[in-house]
């Protein structure tokens, strides 16, 4: 997201597909977050001790919380989904928090990232359903409770994907717009005296929208992915 939500994109030619518009900031920050998470995961898992260090204990608390939550939500056989749900949470969390660094923008304020993440959760949920129930049991789900409800069931599956993605995008994008808009309104109303107010207000606003709302939305996104896996099993 650029100035007031204007997305700065560049055109890239991809063989057999043609010209594709991409947001270079989104791509850079996404890769940077992936690299950061890989480095942190490597450091944490490098020297695991029976008597954990403070950092190891902190990571174990987070893992245990997500383990319990995933098992409670998905039920039987949930253990194999814990790494996926936790990775989803950490990626979305750091994507939301990255805008605290001046000059960087949240990849989750770009609809393409949110749709990609939603699609990932959608594919995992449906493929796990096929593995769990078999292809017959999976297809039977679409004609339940009555066969004439087939279009309704298809619509509800697509609706899940879209609402899951748009929810994250809407919250983060709207937060970014509010943070950009409030200084302009304050300066218009109060003139140069508004600068003193903004000095106190902006860290609070950034803290609320990026840290607090970002953490809640990351948690909700991961939890909904677990719930969607649970629904289809």
């Amino acid at each position: 997201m650029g100035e007031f939500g204007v997305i700065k994109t560049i055109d890239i030619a991809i063989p057999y597909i043609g010209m594709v518009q991409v947001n270079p900031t989104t791509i850079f920050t996404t890769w940077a977050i992936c690299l950061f998470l890989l480095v942190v995961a490597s450091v944490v898992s490098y020297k695991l001790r029976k008597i954990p260090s403070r950092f190891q204990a902190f990571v174990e608390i987070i893992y245990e919380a997500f383990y319990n939550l995933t098992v409670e939500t998905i039920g039987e056989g949930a253990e194999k989904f814990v790494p996926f749900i936790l990775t989803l949470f950490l990626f979305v969390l750091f994507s939301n928090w990255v805008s605290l660094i001046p000059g960087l923008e949240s990849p989750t304020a770009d609809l393409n990232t949110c749709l990609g993440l939603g699609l990932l959760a959608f594919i995992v949920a449906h493929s796990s359903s096929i593995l769990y129930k078999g292809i017959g049991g999976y297809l039977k789900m679409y004609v339940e409770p009555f066969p004439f409800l087939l279009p309704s069931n298809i619509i509800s599956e697509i609706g899940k994907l879209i609402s899951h993605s748009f929810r994250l995008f809407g919250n983060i994008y709207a937060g970014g717009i509010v943070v950009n808009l409030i200084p302009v309104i304050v300066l218009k109303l109060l003139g140069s005296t508004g600068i003193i107010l903004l000095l106190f207000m902006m860290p609070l606003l950034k803290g609320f929208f990026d840290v607090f709302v970002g953490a809640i939305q990351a948690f909700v996104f991961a939890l909904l992915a677990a719930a969607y896996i649970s629904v289809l099993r």
Partner: protein
Amino acid sequence: MSLSDKDKESSDIRSAIKYFALISQIGLQFIFCVLLGGFFGLKLDGFFNTTPLFSLIGLIMGIIGGAFSVYRLIFASEK
């Protein structure tokens, strides 16, 4: 407070957070299903020139689909 009381308390907090997240999604999921049903119906009406037959059918299908998806989401969280 014994260990089992603490476990129960943390389980209650987890459940409360989980339900908060799920409830906040219910309205959004329902609305998107209705909009999608209406959208597909509108496109079919445009294609077959049968306005407003498919739009109405799409809307009804969307409402039913939304209701079912919300119902399944709530009951899946009870596992």
